[in-house]
C-alpha cells in the first residue's frame, strides 16, 4: 500500500515555516512537501504505524539523505516487529539508485546489527563493488567485519584493475587489521607480490605505496627495493615512483649512518639530474 492510500483524515499536516527571508530555499516537489507535512504531524506524536512506515518510504524516495526520516523508520520497523530481511531488500534497491548515500549504508548497518546476521553482507558489498570497484562506502562497510577470504576477493579486483587503490588499501587492511599477526615469511611474499605488480605497470603508484607500507611493518629494510628503483628510474619512460622511492632509500641510509648527508646530497642531485635529462 502506498502512503496516499491510507486514511490520514485524523492528521492535520504541519507546514514548514521558513520565515520572511529564508536562505537557500528549495523548490520542493509538491509530493515531498505533502509527505513532509504529514511527517511533522505524526512525528510530534511519535506515531509508529504502517501508514507512517509508508510515509517514510515516500520521503526517502525524494530525499534519501534525510537522516531524521531514516532514524524514524528504524524506530517504526523495530517497534512493529517488521521482517528486517525485507528491509534489506528495500535497502538493496535504494543502494542501486544511490550507491554513495551515507545514510543508506548506516541504515543497513543498523538493520544488520538488529538481525544479528551478516551472512548476506559479503555478496551485497560485492555486488556494489562490481558496479563501482572504488565505492568508499562499500569498502568502509567491509572493514566493519573482517571477512574470511578477503584476500582472494581483493586479489580478484586487483587482477581486474591493477590501479584500484581501494583494493590495495583493503589488502593492507585485511593483513594488518587481522587479529592474527602475519608472519615475516608471509610479508616477504606480499612484497614479492607487490613487486610483480610494479613490474607490470611501473608508473602505477598503488603497489609502490603498498610495498613500502608492508616493508615498514616488517623486519625488512627499504633497501630491498634499491635495484628495482634503479631499474625503473633509468627506464623509458622513467617511473617517478621509483625516483621517489630511491629518495626514501637514501634518506634511510643517512638515518642508519650508512651514508653521510653530503653523499645524500650528491645522490639526490644525481637522481634529479637523471630525471630531468630523461624528461627532456
Amino acid at each position, binding site marked *: 500500500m502506498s502512503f496516499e492510500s491510507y486514511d490520514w483524515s485524523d492528521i492535520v499536516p*504541519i507546514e*514548514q*515555516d*521558513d*520565515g*520572511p*527571508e*529564508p*536562505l*537557500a*530555499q*528549495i*523548490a*520542493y*516537489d509538491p509530493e*515531498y512537501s505533502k509527505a*513532509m507535512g504529514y511527517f*511533522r*504531524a505524526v*512525528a*510530534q506524536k*511519535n506515531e509508529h504505524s504502517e501508514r507512517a512506515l509508508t510515509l517514510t518510504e515516500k520521503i526517502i524516495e*525524494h*530525499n*534519501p*539523505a*534525510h*537522516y*531524521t526520516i531514516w*532514524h*524514524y523508520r528504524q524506530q517504526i520497523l523495530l517497534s512493529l516487529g517488521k521482517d528486517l530481511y525485507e528491509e534489506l531488500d528495500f535497502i538493496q534497491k535504494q543502494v542501486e539508485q544511490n550507491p554513495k548515500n*551515507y*545514510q543508506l*549504508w*548506516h541504515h543497513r*548497518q543498523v538493520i544488520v546489527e538488529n538481525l544479528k546476521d551478516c551472512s548476506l553482507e559479503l555478496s551485497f558489498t560485492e555486488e556494489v563493488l562490481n558496479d563501482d570497484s*572504488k565505492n*568508499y562506502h562499500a*569498502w*568502509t562497510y567491509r*572493514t566493519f567485519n573482517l571477512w574470511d577470504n578477503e584476500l582472494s576477493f581483493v586479489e580478484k579486483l586487483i587482477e581486474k584493475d591493477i*590501479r*584500484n*587503490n*581501494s583494493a590495495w*588499501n*583493503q589488502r*593492507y*587492511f585485511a593483513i594488518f587489521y587481522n587479529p592474527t599477526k602475519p608472519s615475516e615469511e608471509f610479508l616477504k611474499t606480499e612484497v614479492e607480490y607487490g613487486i610483480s605488480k610494479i613490474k607490470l605497470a611501473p608508473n*602505477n*603508484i*598503488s603497489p609502490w*605505496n*603498498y610495498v*613500502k*607500507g*608492508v616493508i*615498514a*611493518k616488517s623486519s625488512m629494510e627499504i633497501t630491498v627495493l634499491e635495484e628495482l628503483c634503479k631499474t625503473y628510474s633509468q627506464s623509458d619512460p622513467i617511473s617517478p615512483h621509483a625516483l*621517489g622511492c630511491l629518495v626514501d632509500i637514501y634518506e634511510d641510509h643517512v638515518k642508519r649512518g650508512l651514508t653521510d648527508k653530503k653523499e645524500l646530497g650528491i645522490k639526490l642531485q644525481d637522481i634529479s639530474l637523471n630525471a630531468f635529462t630523461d624528461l627532456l
Partner: protein
Amino acid sequence: MFSWIKEYSMFSWNKKDSSSSANTQAEELKTFDRDKTIGYFKRCLEFLPKQYEGNDTHRMTLAFYSLAGLDLLGVLETEYTQERINNWIDWIYAQQILPDENNPELNERICGFRGSPFSGLPYNPSGCRESRLPFDASNLAMTYTALASLLILGDDLSRVDKPSIVNAMRYLQKEDGSFTQTYQGMESDMRFVYCACAISYILDDFSGINVDKVVQYIKESQSYDYGIGQGPGEESHGGSTYCAIASLYLLNKLDEGLLSKDKTIFWLISRQESGFQGRANKPPDTCYSFWIGASLMILDSFEFIDYEKNYNFLMKTSTSLGGFSKCPGCYPDVMHTYMGVAGLSLMEESKKLDSTLNISLKAKENLLSKSVFKRG
C-alpha cells in the same frame, strides 16, 4: 618564480580580453568569468531547483557555500542591503535549538543548529526554547556552517548559546575519538571531527572535545601511504586528509598528530594530475583543488603545486551557467562552485581565504575582533 600568478588572478580576469588575437593558434583557454559565477551564487542563495531536495536537511551548507563564495569574490555587501543581510542572520538563528527554559536537561543533547526548519516548529529568530519534538536535533556540520555563515555576514555571534553547544558536543564523541553528526546515532568519521574542532575554535572553548582522543583517532587514521582516511584502516582520501590536518591545526597539535609531515605533504602533492584527485588513481575533481590545496597551505607547501595546470583544469569544469561542476562536462552544483572559487583563491597572490576554517580572512578577522568570543 610565481610572476604569472597575478595574471591568473580571478579578479583581473573577469573581463574578456578582445586584443588577444595574436594567440589564436594556441588552444583557446577559458578564463574565469567572475560576473557569471556571482550570478550563479546569487541564484543559489535565493532559490534552488528540485534536484536539491536531497539536501533539505543540509540547507545550511548550501547557504554557506553561496555566502562564502560571494564573500570571497568580495561582493556580499555591494550586492545586498544590510536589511537583507540582517534577515538572513535571523533565519540562521531561527535554526538554533536552545536549552529548554524550564528544564535544560530535557533537550541538552540536541542543542546547536539544525540545517533547515524541516522539523516543523514556527519561525522564531530568537531561536527555539521549546524544542522537545522527538525528531528535532542539531547537527555538527550545520552548527559549523551556521557559525561560519554568521561570521561571513558580519554578525557578532551574540545570540549563539555557547554553553549548550559545547555541552551537546560531548554526547557526540565516540569512544574511538571520532564524532557523529547528530545524537540520532549516525555514522562517525573525520568529517565531524573537523566540524567539532572548527566549532570549538570559533567559540574559543575546547572543553566539549576530548582532545587526546581526537589526536589519537587522527593518528590511527593515517594510512601506510601517509594520506588520511575517514577512519582507521580506510583508504587515504583528500577530504578526510583536509579534515584531519585542519583539525590538528585548530587544536594546535599539528606536530604531535602527523606521523610524518614530509610524507603527508608528498602524498598531497602526488594527488595533482591536472587538477587534483581525491584518491590515488582516480580522476581529478574540482573540490580537491580546495581540499588538497588548503591542506598544503596549512602545511606551508602550497608552492610545490603546478598552478597553471590546476587553473586550466578548473576552467574546464566551469560551465556556461557560471557554476563549477565536479568534472569537465558534468552538471554544475553549488558545492563544487564554491570549491572551485576557493581553489582559485588559494592561488591568488593576495590571500583572501583562511584555509583552516574555510572562510574569508575578512570573516576570520570578524571572529577575532568583533565577535563576543574573540580571543584575549
